[in-house]
């Protein structure tokens, strides 16, 4: 029992220490930028227009037309305008002095202060949703182009819809609508889907089969793997409809590697730490360590932490057996419990360090955040 009690203490101490590590710390904006506010109203259209010109000359190469080319500095993110409103001085500072270690040059020599504020005003507008008209409600599949089939001898019509834009390696929804002569939906019949390939002549490769519902619509998901034009064929008995599907190649860098499998996240991410831990500290120092479980309370990280805890609690248990070896009344001038006590301390210290290292580790790089 005492071992378990000690073990519980070890775990409690470890978790408390994990929380204690989380310390606030944020990059301070230096003078003369500290505290500066945007002299222009954020929604000033003429300032935005002026800023846009400068942006397209100097910034678009790295940041992209929408400002989202660098995922760490995504100006089109929804929370970005708010961030700019709360600390305009920070953004003016970075724009003026640059971040050479990240490849961001300083602009204070080439742009006047007004121009810099105009540009920030434009950046602010990137995060605001564009005022495009919404499609009217009640449209079942807004981005689907239905293509009718030539009417068949049975008189039924097969319509096939595919999305206007589709990307390689992303699932596409294929829709086929079957109607009879009177234009009423035919339900409960199987529609076959194919994909036309040129392999020593035209051939049809089966994608799958789906049954029509009460509205006569059969739906099938399909993940194309090749870019370019793709002919999708839907077939019901002798009726065949061919629809072209234009597959856009994903924008891929020359060399891309992703570290590891994307593990499912069973819950909402747990993050305990200052908000500033999402960003680099001043002087481009690594962000503050914070406690983070990517998959929430049910995070897969627990599995690894559990194994480490199991190993180190076993060590603790073993050293504790050694600790119990000395007979107490025999201890005289030399404390024979000295060595096992040191051992217990070391095991606790190292075990806690490893667990902390893993819990706080995934957060220490901002592009993961």
């Amino acid at each position: 029992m005492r071992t378990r009690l000690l073990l519980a203490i070890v775990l409690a101490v470890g978790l408390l220490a994990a929380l204690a590590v989380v310390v606030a710390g944020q990059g301070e904006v230096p003078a003369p930028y500290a505290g500066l506010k945007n002299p222009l109203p954020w929604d000033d259209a003429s300032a935005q227009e002026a800023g846009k010109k400068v942006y397209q000359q100097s910034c678009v190469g790295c940041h992209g037309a929408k400002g989202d080319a660098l995922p760490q500095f995504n100006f089109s993110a929804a929370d970005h305008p708010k961030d700019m409103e709360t600390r305009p001085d920070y953004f003016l500072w970075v724009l003026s002095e640059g971040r050479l270690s990240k490849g961001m040059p300083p602009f204070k020599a080439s742009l006047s202060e007004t121009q810099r504020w105009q540009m920030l005003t434009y950046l602010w507008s990137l995060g605001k949703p564009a005022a495009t008209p919404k499609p009217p409600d009640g449209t079942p599949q807004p981005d689907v182009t239905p293509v009718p089939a030539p009417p068949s001898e049975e008189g039924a019509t097969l319509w096939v819809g595919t999305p206007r834009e589709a990307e390689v390696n992303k699932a596409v929804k294929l829709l086929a609508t079957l109607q009879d002569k009177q234009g009423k939906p035919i339900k409960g019949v199987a529609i076959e889907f194919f994909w036309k390939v040129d392999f020593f002549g035209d051939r049809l490769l089966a994608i799958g089969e789906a049954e029509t519902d009460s509205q006569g619509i059969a739906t099938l998901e399909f993940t194309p793997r090749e870019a370019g034009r793709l002919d999708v064929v839907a077939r019901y008995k002798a009726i065949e409809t061919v629809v072209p599907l234009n597959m856009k190649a994903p924008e891929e860098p020359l060399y891309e590697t992703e570290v590891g499998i994307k593990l499912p996240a069973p819950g909402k991410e747990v993050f305990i730490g200052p908000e500033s831990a999402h960003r680099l500290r001043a002087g481009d120092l690594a962000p503050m360590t914070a406690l983070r479980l990517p998959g929430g309370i049910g995070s897969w990280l627990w599995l690894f932490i559990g194994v480490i805890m199991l190993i180190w609690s076993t060590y603790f248990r073993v050293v504790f057996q050694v600790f119990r070896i000395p007979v107490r009344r025999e201890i005289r001038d030399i404390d024979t419990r000295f060595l096992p006590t040191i051992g217990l301390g070391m095991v606790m210290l190292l075990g806690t360090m490893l667990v902390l290292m893993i819990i706080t580790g995934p957060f220490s790089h901002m592009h993961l955040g």
Partner: protein
Amino acid sequence: MRTRAESYEQRLERVVLNPLSQTTRGYKLFVLSLLAVVGWGLYAYYIQLRYGLGATGMRDVVMWGLYLVNFVFFIGISHAGTLISAILRVTQAGWRTPVTRMAELITVVAISIGALMPLIDLGRPERVWELIAFGRFQSPLLWDIVSITSYLTGSLIYLYLPTIPDFALMRDRLGYYANPVKRLIYTVLAVGWRGTPEQHRRLEKAIGIMAITIIPIAISVHTVVSYVFSMTLRPGWNSTVFGIYFVIGAIFSGIASILIVMAIFRKFYHLEEYLTERHFRNLGYLMLVALFIYLYLTFGEYLTVAYKMQVEEKHLLETLFVGSNALWFWFFVIAGLVIPALIIILRKGPVIPRMVIAAVLINIAMWIKRFAIVIPSLQVPLMPFDFGAYYPTWVEWSITAGAFAGFILIFAIFAKLVPLISIWEVAEGARETPQPRVATLVEQSGMKPEEIEALLSKAVAEKGRSRVEQ
């Protein structure tokens, strides 16, 4: 009370503890020369710190060199120990008792030296803390920290546990006559061991838990070392079999290391009675099994790659088989696999020298094999450039020599502080085995048990224990 002048256990204690109380001039000279080599290695490291990694042969293309080769090698021989001793303990192989202590000692010393190597490889070693503070869980280097820390701690505990009764013995035998410092050290190390049944129960329990725990941890260590390589897309490293390949390679070179250490201390510490031909033969056969598995994996690894022959792999195989690294590779195949296998299988000549020659060849060849894993893969160009070149500088060779000398030095010092044979376990084993034999002899001959024991111990003294047991 036994009547004969010296019982088996008394002689065991005398023989094993003798080198710990007497230090010869040869030993001192040996230690001094090792210290000189280590000192030279430290000087070379100072030069490296002073002038940066430019002092080494590592460059932008081949950015890993001898240090990483040594890292894999030392982590490899560290498997000797703990894994083999734990497996023998778990399977209750009776012959293990005189071997385990040395094996466990090799582990602790080798992993300490091995873990230093990546630190030496760093241009700014003081930044290693940042790996812990800001390390990313996605990096195999972080996994390395976890598994090596766990393994080092675990094998220290596992080495220490069975030495407790021996430390107690030394506290009682040497302590009172030796200087107070020694007495203090042994008293602290013996943690008040009196050999009571309660203490025995606790110790056996602890050893039992550790023997099982340490096996998966040991396997994880070398698997993770292999992941450092195989989590990249480099030719030769981009392999699914690397985990088990490294583990088997580690066991292989580990057993070879035990054999060498056993032979050395058998000679200088006069342990002939306890480390018999049987131990060398058994370990030699284990080594042969590891050799064949390693041969099989090597064959499979290169055949599957050579059959498909992607461009980068083709470059790699060319440099390994016929190109600039061919000498290394074929030395490994001939001296590390073919000759040792023949030496062990053919059984020509005395057992111990045969096994030792095989073990020495294997250890040299396995170091070279690690070189052939690390360096050529980095030389192969992944972009349209020329092949990378790597020539270790004197700094790297000196630090490597210093590391090997340091390994031997720490081992030599340990061998003066810790009995190299687990006295209580060997004595226990000896008590357990002859008992039924005496009983049957009493029944068969009608002599008194004391007489038979006296006869047996006389025979043991004349021929060596193992022969009598056989």
